[in-house]
């Protein structure tokens, strides 16, 4: 797995907390939504960046009130054909004004990079191949857009 941030391979300092693993002090962590609900009070005042990961049936309205606490929101594509997160991304950026890292995770494929970016994702968790080259090629394929999004 690799991380593309604005089309460049980037280090990923974030630790994704799975299951009941403890939340390490002083490190940037990504919690899933359920874990966040459980821990939100306890994490108040924690001195490291927080991220949250939403499944494809968890709309951003669930975290709207807490959004200021997150430096990162990860949206899941369980299958690339499940397009709900495209709408969630636009709502986060354009409606809720989220300015942190918006990360696409799951079945993130090269032929969808541009759609994701146009909806507001700036970080893509990708698998295999040469992601920078794939990104550059995908970006160059279509240069005209017929509709405004937040971009």
């Amino acid at each position, binding site marked *: 797995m690799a991380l593309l941030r604005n089309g460049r391979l980037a280090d990923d300092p974030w630790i994704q907390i799975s299951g009941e693993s403890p939340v390490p002090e002083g490190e940037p962590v990504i919690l899933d939504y359920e874990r966040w609900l459980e821990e939100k009070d306890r994490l108040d005042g924690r001195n490291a960046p927080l991220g949250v990961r939403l499944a494809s049936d968890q709309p951003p309205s669930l975290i709207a009130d807490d959004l200021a606490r997150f430096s990162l929101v990860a949206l899941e594509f369980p299958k690339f054909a499940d*397009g709900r997160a*495209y709408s969630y991304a636009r709502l986060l950026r354009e*409606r809720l004004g989220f300015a942190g890292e918006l990360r696409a995770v799951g079945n993130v494929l090269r032929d969808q990079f541009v759609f994701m970016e146009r909806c507001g994702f700036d970080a893509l968790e990708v698998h295999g191949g040469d992601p920078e080259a794939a990104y550059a090629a995908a970006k160059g394929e279509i240069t005209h857009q017929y509709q405004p999004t937040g971009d």
Partner: protein
Amino acid sequence: MYQYRDIDRDFVRQRVEQFRDQVRRRLDGDLSEDEFKPLRLMNGVYLQLHAYMLRVAIPYGTLSSDQMRRLAHIARRYDKGFGHFTTRQNVQFNWPKLIDIPDILGELADVDMHAIQTSGNCIRNVTADHFAGVAADEVDDPRIYGEIIRQWSTLHPEFTFLPRKFKIAVTGSPADRAATRFHDIGLILRKGGESGDRIGFEVVVGGGQGRTPMVAKTIRDFVPEQDMLSYLEAILRVYNMLGRRDNKYKARIKILLHETGVEKFTQLVEDEWRHIKDGPLVLPVDTVAAIRADFALPPYQDAAAASDGFEPARVANPDFDLWVTRNVHAHKQPGYAIATVSLKPVGGIPGDATAEQMDAVADLADRFSLGEIRVSHEQNLVFAHVRRADLFALWQALQAIGLATANEGLVSDIIACPGLDYCALANARSIPVSQRISSLFDDMRKQHDIGELKIKISGCINACGHHHVGHIGILGVDRRGTENYQITLGGDAGPDANIGTIIGPGFDDDGVVAAVKTLIHRYLDIRDDGERFIDTFRRAGVRPFKEAVYGSA
């Protein structure tokens, strides 16, 4: 018609090269079939029973004679010499090779055409009234808005992986020749607003056929023109987030609307719309005006000159008169007419045209209809700008190429899906049944005596042949390994939108043809003066028809 700008041209070219690369990556094994599938579908490429099928978009059903000639060329060079015009105003080629498809798309791009979004779970090619712009009864030309929707929906990044396919139709006429109430969204142009003279739309949502047929519901009486796209985006966003993804048979917006309830659904859309209504999707007056200019009516002659000799020709030629009676329609412009070119020769395959016919139609369009052709959702072609004085010459020329059948709206003007002869989903054949029914009444005068009768045939529950809205609908099903045909009566795709009801047990192919004959004879026996089949059915109910077919209980 709409003239491609440089950006449109660059875009379709880039799209061809993008697909060429995707095909290459597929053939190299870099893309799995699962990953490739939505990419090819977004470019109109299906995998059918015997071969790949390419579905080419004819946005809102309008094309030029040069575009028609290119379709003929593609049919000849890459297919078996014919194409098939569909109920979605598209054209399908049934036998292209995958490796050739990028080249075919390149040939289409040369004449400002594409196959984008003719399939896949995205916003499909938008459809419109085939008499758009020239119908005497219309409020405004729906193609202006069809083109704006085409552009907005093209590779829309948010709505490319919807729960299911999404079809939008626009009509400018209360006669609703676009079957808007059987689309995911129907836009019905009307005047409204405070002054009552602003252009806008009644918005209907959640219509469709398939295994759960539903008539669309009105969710807003009037959306002003400038807000059209924001309102559409609001509907699509609600659907994208809430439409079911657990079961493809429950994934269309009609199910969401049904399960949510119209009131609640409307509220969701309105709440979403409130946020985006005054944003970047507001349609600038200039943009609409520029596209409107492309659809401006051509220079017409004055009425008297344009009508010269028409009435005498009608009187002198009864067969021509018959054709005029059914296939010629009132035009906005005095002296002009709209003429339907039937792709339903008695005993033929509905919607098929050979390359030679396509070329000939293109030439006739140049001679008689200002170089423009329409495709109707009833699988016929339309010449929209014919001088009445030219109708006789046009009819003679159509006769010479076998396209002068005087049967628009009659018993042999059947809609049929490709069925088991082509389609991977079908349970039964549609085309042979359609051919046999259309041959039941080979005397055209008898067909005229029977009058308007819409027969629609689908080869499976997906209802591509629109059987639910046929006055007589026929649905082919698989019954323990044999083809079986159910009959429905009373469907209607127009403003009196209605879904037909099944009249009883199904038949084999011989039986269904005989039953249709019996139904028509019963209608002839019991009709009142001036009643169409559907009128008699509405007056007398299903019982006399049922008795005729199954005997009295």
